[in-house]
């Protein structure tokens, strides 16, 4: 397994002294080499928390996370991260942003340049190398974000609602772009989203998370790519997932309010 999440618990300090609130309670999940795995759930279900744990930004209370058999102790170049807010360095051009990873890891300048150019071409930003992020549209910024993460050739690519800040049309286009890039490079992807069609369109498997901080279930999506979002089979998956998430909403309405999360 490329990525193994083993019985992970995570809580955050409560605002009141009453009791600690667990955002994740015993989550176990794996991703195989080259797999596209989505984490799907309502806001506050802990999917971003789980991604931050894998990235190494926060530490689990219990359980552990393994990459290629090695326990995660903190952030590292083996896990590339794409953020919803892009998080590009505004003082660097497109080229400099994408070259950041190879440069800090000590890749020789010539090789780093060639790698950067290759990933710029991959995400379709040729001609924009010397533009600053400020001058780019949201979709283009996220292309830079994806290229920057991939240029490090990470073991796992973590994407935290990467298209959440984009308009519907751009979002659709970026989905197809991501699919094309993924098929070409074949990284292992963990993709956080709250959009059911997005998860169905992209994933090999969808891990559905509920508001109790556990996995509701793992749904393998057995459809050939590219997937037609209007096909009957596609809509069946959407319906099934909607029902899973609806049940969760209803059952959670009667219990304590949703866990205070970091999201």
């Amino acid at each position: 397994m490329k990525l193994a999440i083993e019985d992970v618990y995570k809580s955050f300090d409560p605002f009141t002294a009453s009791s600690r609130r667990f955002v994740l309670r015993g989550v176990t999940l794996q991703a195989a080499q080259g797999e596209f795995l989505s984490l799907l759930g309502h806001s506050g279900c802990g999917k971003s928390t789980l991604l931050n744990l894998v990235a190494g930004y926060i530490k689990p209370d219990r359980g552990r996370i393994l990459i290629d058999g090695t326990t995660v102790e903190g952030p590292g170049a083996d896990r590339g991260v794409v953020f919803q807010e892009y998080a590009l360095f505004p003082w660097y051009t497109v080229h400099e942003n994408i070259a950041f990873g190879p440069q800090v890891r000590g890749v020789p300048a010539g090789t780093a340049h060639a790698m950067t150019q290759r990933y710029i071409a991959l995400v379709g930003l040729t001609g924009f190398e010397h533009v600053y992020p400020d001058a780019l549209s949201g979709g283009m910024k996220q292309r830079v974000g994806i290229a920057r993460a991939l240029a490090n050739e990470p073991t796992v690519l973590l994407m935290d609602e990467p298209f959440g800040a984009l308009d519907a049309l751009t979002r659709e286009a970026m989905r197809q772009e991501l699919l094309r890039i993924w098929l070409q490079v074949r990284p292992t992807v963990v993709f956080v989203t709250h959009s059911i069609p997005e998860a169905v369109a992209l994933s090999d498997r969808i891990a559905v998370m509920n508001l109790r901080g556990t996995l509701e279930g793992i749904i393998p999506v057995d459809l050939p790519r590219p997937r037609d979002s209007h096909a009957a089979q596609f809509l069946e998956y959407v319906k099934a997932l909607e029902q899973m998430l609806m049940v969760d909403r209803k059952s959670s309405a009667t219990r304590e309010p949703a866990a205070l999360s970091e999201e």
Partner: protein
Amino acid sequence: MQDVAQLGRLRRVRPAAVDYTRWVTIATFFLVWQLIAVYNAVHQVFNPVFLPSPTMVLRAGRDLLGRGVLYLHILQSAWRLLIGFSLGTSVAVVVGILVGRSRRLESIAAPLLDLVGPIPPFALLPIFIIWFGVGELPKLVFIAYATFLPVLAYTVDGVKSVNPLLIRSAYSLGASEMQIFRRVVLKSALPNIFVGMRVSLALSFSALVVAEMIGADAGLGYLIIDSRNFFRMANMFLAASLIGVEYTLFSLLLGRVEARLFRWRKGGYAHALER
């Protein structure tokens, strides 16, 4: 393609209008000054010695140049300012980054700054002279000290407001602590640091003049005091103007560096609407 060509024709980029008012105002200022001085020299409304005309100031400058001392004063002041200002800025940036990064250091530094900060640096000059003697050292330390406090405050603020997401993303790209400091924290705080430097520049110049008025044997501040002792009004005006010129040059230089460093920065009121 035709559309684009048409667009180009429609939305012609206007050349920046040369602002004549600026030069007219400046010329008028000197003209009026000259007229008042000449009129006063003839009609003796007040003692003409008090207000030399611009041409007299220029003549004084020519005389001092001829005697070879004016360069000395100008260079001495520029050199002192450069050293003192650079010293104060560098120390402030280093301290500011350390303080901005550690909550504990900040809780130690903050009350100290509250204690010392309200004292105008000029009040401390005699103490500096007693501590560091009468040579160059007290002057440089004094200018550095006047520069230090504002730059420090702005640096701490800049470091504290670094977007944490950028730090996360740098870590995930494999950057070391040192690389994050240089490529993210410092880069992000730099615009703030430059605001601090701008604020400090004016203070540094005041400190320079005061320091040169007290116990120096060269420099534009010294020239003012020396001319006062001999009641050479034109020389006093000359020295004051030259300090103004030096300040303007330093300020322009700082602006140039800023424009180069912050090409990536856009925004602010001027960029809100196309006019």
